[in-house]
């Protein structure tokens, strides 16, 4: 309960002062976004089929889904893991980790938006998404994509509610210290706020967190893998452990990204004393075991697919083992696990933040690689004999446009962080801390930006 020394003044500082580095970073991200927009306009103008490596299944020897759908699965996983981390902090009262809870929440909101964006990218024309919404009531009971939309919307509503509610008393307490030009937004968040509601809100938040924690295994470990297994035409998209494996991978990549963002905030705003090394070290242990779990599930896949699987699954696994992608993924996992356990066992020699960020990035990219492989690999191999051998094995390699658009979603999420950090405090402030910010005679709004 105790132990966290949060200095509210320093938490609010980024909202009031902006460094030169911030502007430089903002400029870089803006440039990346312009490139993203250019690529998107290009794709819309010439068509998905013309500018991506995506091709027709069957005689064209292509695969219908590629980096975008792989990226979608990755982002969804990140979102689920992010909210799980934040909700766990609240439900189990892990006060020690409070400084990273909001970072995980913001990551979740951004990741959900990016997951949705990846679907739109894959469809080729953004306006078409409305067709799926119009038809949603009639298709949700049988169409996996309609379900995806339902799941993303549900999560977006839950996390935004969760975040907004948790901000109400905080914002109203420190409003006089927040940027003036955002006043309408704060007015909206704190609409009808009354200090008496605090206790109720805390209870609501607790139950909301419980609901989210219950939904994560159901959705990330259930619905998404189930959606894939529904498409029985493709091998490799089902299996007894598919749900558990996907959940583990999701939380691994989410924790890796939370770690990266935590270190970034620590560094950028000099919060080393508030987000202590201790927190990073604990997260390292969790990450080590999650990565180990991912390796373990991969071994299950390979063993069952290689030795006793029916012909087409066997062929698929054999094909997978020949892919460079697969061995790059395995290499990334093994290296990460070795380094992480090194950090746990011999912190003196191994533990340092740059290395931790490096390993986290390696893990996040490895999981992305695995997700894309999971999507593409099943589609590369036509399913049933005799078509299996009459059709060619598919080929797929993402084009530059696809890379720009997918990496663009990561840039967009980074851009989102840059913006949000100027709008809300990135560490949740508790009552005692807010007291310290009470308006005094000196601070009557001369702060500005």
């Amino acid at each position: 309960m105790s132990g966290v020394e949060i200095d509210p003044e320093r938490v609010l500082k980024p909202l009031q002062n902006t460094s030169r580095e911030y502007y430089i970073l903002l400029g870089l991200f803006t440039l990346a976004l312009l490139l993203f927009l250019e690529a998107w306009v290009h794709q819309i103008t010439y068509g998905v089929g013309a500018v991506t490596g995506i091709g027709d299944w069957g005689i064209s020897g292509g695969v219908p889904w590629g980096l975008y759908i792989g990226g979608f699965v990755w982002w969804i996983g990140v979102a689920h893991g992010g909210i799980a981390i934040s909700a766990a902090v609240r439900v189990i009262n892990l006060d020690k980790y409070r400084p990273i809870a909001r970072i995980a929440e913001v990551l979740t909101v951004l990741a959900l938006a990016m997951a949705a964006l990846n679907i739109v990218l894959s469809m080729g024309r953004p306006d078409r998404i409305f067709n799926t919404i119009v038809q949603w009531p009639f298709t949700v009971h049988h169409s996996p994509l309609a379900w995806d939309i339902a799941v993303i919307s549900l999560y977006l509503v839950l996390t935004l509610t969760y975040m907004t509610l948790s901000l109400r008393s905080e914002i109203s307490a420190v409003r006089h210290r927040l940027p003036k030009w955002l006043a309408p937004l704060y007015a909206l968040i704190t609409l009808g706020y009354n200090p008496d509601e605090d206790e109720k809100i805390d209870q609501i938040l607790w139950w909301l967190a419980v609901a989210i924690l219950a939904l994560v295994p159901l959705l990330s470990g259930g619905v998404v893998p189930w959606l894939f297994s529904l498409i029985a035409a493709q091998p490799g998209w089902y299996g007894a452990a598919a749900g558990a494996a996907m959940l583990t991978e999701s939380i691994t990549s989410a924790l890796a990204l939370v770690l990266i963002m935590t270190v970034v905030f620590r560094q950028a705003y000099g919060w080393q004393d508030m987000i202590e090394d201790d927190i990073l070290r604990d997260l390292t242990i969790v990450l080590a075991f999650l990565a180990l779990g991912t390796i373990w599930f991969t071994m299950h896949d390979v063993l069952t697919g290689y030795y006793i699987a029916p012909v087409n699954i066997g062929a698929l696994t054999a094909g997978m083992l020949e892919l460079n992608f697969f061995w790059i993924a395995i290499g990334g996992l093994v290296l990460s696990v070795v380094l992480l356990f090194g950090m746990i066992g011999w912190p003196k020699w191994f533990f340092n933040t740059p290395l931790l960020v490096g390993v986290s990035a390696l893990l996040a990219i490895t999981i992305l690689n695995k997700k894309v492989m999971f999507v593409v690999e099943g589609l590369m191999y036509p399913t049933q004999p005799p078509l299996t051998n009459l059709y060619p094995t598919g080929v797929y390699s993402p084009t530059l446009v696809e890379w720009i658009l997918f990496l663009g979603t990561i840039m967009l999420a980074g851009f989102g962080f840059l913006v949000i950090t100027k709008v809300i405090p990135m560490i949740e402030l508790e009552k005692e801390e807010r007291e310290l910010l009470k308006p005094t005679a000196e601070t009557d709004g001369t702060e500005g930006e």
Partner: protein
Amino acid sequence: MADLPPKKGDPEWEEWAEDILDSTEFDTELGKQISKDALRIAEGELSKAEFHERYGDEVKAEFGVDERPTKPDPEPDNTMPRVPGDRNQTRRNVLKAMGGAAAAVGLAGCVSASADDGSESDGNPDSDTQIGMAIDTERCIACLQCSEACKEENNTDIGVHWPYVFRYEDEHAGDTREDFLTRHCQHCSEPSCTYVCPTQARYRRTEDGIVLTDYDTCVGCKYCQVACPYGVNYLGKDEPNEVVGSEFEGDRVGRDGRTVGGNPPKGVMGKCTYCVHRQDSDDPELQGTTACEQACPVDVIHFGDMNDRDSDPREHLREKEGSNQYRLLDEVGNEPNIVYIGKRPSKDAEPVQGPVSYEELNMRDGNYDYVGAQDEAPADGEEGDAA
């Protein structure tokens, strides 16, 4: 529930069956009447038309479905033009293909006589029209006329072959020999592509069982492509074939008012439509025909209502009762409506190039040159660098 049902035919059986009917929300008497008359249809004492006349309204009121055929059965057996087209180039190819086929013919004699299910048994009260095909691979010479004619008719994109002719070698089939498999969209009765569609753009038209894509509402999500085990879906790339193609001349709007005919627009999913613009046209000459069927010089493709005993495909299936008849990937459960006549390729079948290639007809062949990864073939290391 407790004890076993009485034996059928026992006096108690009727009572027992009535109890069960009573426990449902539906009218017991109506159910009994319907089933009695359904039996009479099977015995030929009652015509389907009379049956629908008698029960149509009640069935609609009771179950909310209208089973009556909305239109009279189409196409009394058309006389098919069974002559190759008069284009010089194609005639040459037909001859060449026949030569190639002759070389590989050891087959004519050996007809395996496992008369799979093939045709549904007769007298089935299911009176809905279900358009389908009987494809006689025993006659096929892989001249690719069907592919070419379809391209010309529907103006499909480069590398897109709605009917695709696999020419394969199958060691498993005794002597090493070539055989052919023409693959159209199977227009399944249980099409997995329609179930996954998030906009209901892919749908099965109830009155004739043709599976179509509404080009106006398709969002290009490619789920249908992923869910189809036959690989018949092609995303519109907006590159209509410059060589063979003419502009699409049929009516794009089908009789149900949805845009379903011809080649798909860019970024929208397309596949064989069974030449829906012909089926829906006012021209009786065109109704009940497809471009591929008309183009076939050796009468491989038989197109028509699979539920009609006297249709061209059913008649042909009866004619070739002695031959092996099968549906492709029957075990998947999509209930395809194309019945093949001839040897079923085994899992050892290997694709081979024949004397007539797609390239020669100025049609690119994805099976050999990967249209999906066209243009500057990406170098192996490319993904690695970008990552």
